[in-house]
């Protein structure tokens, strides 16, 4: 074994690329790979869909009967909020995927290639926004099956859905950062639980005014509450809390995008 002569099949010459890839091309490759992994791992997308259906079912039909919220019944209150925050539940998967790539050495491989650092983040974001976008649309459709009816026009409904998709994008970036800071996949899963606090201690499931006094300030002023309020308002053609929701969205992206790029650099 020690003196095996080289299996010298004469290697066909490989051309040297003229220049590094454009950021858009690199982004597309990174996104394509993440999507392939997602769709070729049945556990990932099947679980995502089943989980969001199950939670909605429980809140709508198990807890819902005991909750008094919203003039139009609990379905009309719960479902817009649920669709707006579904990314907070599915986002753990993003953090886990990012942490896994890091642990398996795939991130090292990508970082050793002549691509823009930002392409790692934009590619990942594009892929995860796509999968989360589907889960938002799926959950919205499920909402109709669970008794939700549009209070106003379809155009208002689409505007509200657009806001939900925007939040999906915002929190995708946040979860990427969580994954980058997590030492391993299990930790990424655990750290993602923080998002549950944001989802539950907000106006998503019950009005903050029903919470104990000491909890109300957090529930009222954390970003998820105005985001959810803006969606509910948009459904009836209103713009209550819309400006605050948009400012929060912009602020979170502006804050977390650079952290992701910098953190990828030393993953």
């Amino acid at each position, binding site marked *: 074994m020690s003196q095996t002569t080289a299996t*010298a099949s004469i290697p066909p010459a490989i051309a040297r*690329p003229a220049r590094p890839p454009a950021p858009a091309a690199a982004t597309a490759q990174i996104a394509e790979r993440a999507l392939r992994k997602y769709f070729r791992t049945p556990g990932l997308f099947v679980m995502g869909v089943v989980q969001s259906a199950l939670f909605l079912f429980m809140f709508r039909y198990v807890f819902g009967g005991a909750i008094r919220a919203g003039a139009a019944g609990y379905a009309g209150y719960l479902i817009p909020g649920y669709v707006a925050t579904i990314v907070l539940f599915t986002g753990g998967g993003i953090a886990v995927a990012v942490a896994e790539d890091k642990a398996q050495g795939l991130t090292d491989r990508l970082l050793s290639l002549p691509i823009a650092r930002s392409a790692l983040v934009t590619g990942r974001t594009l892929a995860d926004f796509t999968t989360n976008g589907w889960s938002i649309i799926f959950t919205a459709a499920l909402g109709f099956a669970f008794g939700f009816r549009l209070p106003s026009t379809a155009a208002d409904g689409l505007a509200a859905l657009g806001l939900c998709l925007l939040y999906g994008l915002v929190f995708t970036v946040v979860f990427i950062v969580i994954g980058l800071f997590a030492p391993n996949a299990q930790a990424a899963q655990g750290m993602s639980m923080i998002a549950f606090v944001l989802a539950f201690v907000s106006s998503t499931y019950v009005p903050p005014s029903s919470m104990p006094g000491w909890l109300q300030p957090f529930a009222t002023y954390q970003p998820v509450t105005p985001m959810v309020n803006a969606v509910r308002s948009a459904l009836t053609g209103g713009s209550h809390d819309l400006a605050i929701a948009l400012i929060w969205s912009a602020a979170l992206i502006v804050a977390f995008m650079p952290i992701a790029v910098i953190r990828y650099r030393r993953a």
Partner: protein
Amino acid sequence: MAVTGPPLVEAHGLRVRFGKVAALDGLDLIARSGQVLAILGPNGAGKTTFVRTVATLVPPSGGELRVRGIDVTRAPVAVRREIGLAGQFAAVEPTMTGRENLRMVARLFGHRRKAAEAAAEAVIEMLGLGEVADRRAGTYSGGQRRRLDLGASLVGAPRLLLLDEPTTGLDPGGRAEVWAAVRSLVAAGTDIVLTTHYLEEADELADQIVVIDHGKAIATGTAAELKAGIGRDIIEVALADGGQLSAAAAVLETLTASPAVIDHTGRRVRSQAGDGATRLAAAIAALDSARIPVDEIALRHPTLDEVFLTLTGSQQDAPGTKADSLR
């Protein structure tokens, strides 16, 4: 292949710190084009850190590091175009086929679609991955996966291939596969810097060896030079009767004034001898007068293992005794 111009890799006083730990502590090293350089060291010596620093994954905290004359701190992007990295962990996407993996990395090196296909095809042929190219990488054997990883580092036609412990964790068959692949790359003129904690691997694949320990280079040379550098030959005695091993050891120790090592399973005793040739005759005479029947007696140069242990001065850190090294 001797090329004039800047060395392939040049490190001067290179330091990398992680918090309080100095992973590289003033490393000096030169790798020249046309040679395979092996960086040999015990676990935690800084081998992986060095490779990661050359690959621009870890910034140096001090000193200089240039790849083909390009400073890694000032122009990391230019360095990335020169290198291909194959790491300790097979960094391929398990849910994608071998061909898909290669095409993706080729695109990320900057190839257009057609050129990426051609590069993937060339690598598949070069590394003999044809039969498994359209299977998901997750189904590959260890050796196949490592070859795919190697292939992925080649699709951009890098000028320097960095292999971080290319055969760690592979069975002997997988190791032979990877060695054959590395040899064919060398034959084709690829410049390689590899790290290993297997002495055999350094001896087999490398032209130049740098031994590092605690983040510093402690010896440099060809395998033969390192062996000669120890300066002391070894007298080795094989006995017919295992019961007389300690008696023979005592005789050798008196004679060479250095400790004798007993190998019970091989029924052998060995000791380093300052001027081997004259001591050998004395050893034969001494063993004879002590009435110890000798099966075989020889004077030989030290193995790389013995060199390594002498240099790093620790039996416990002997290479190949632990499965993983620090990342």
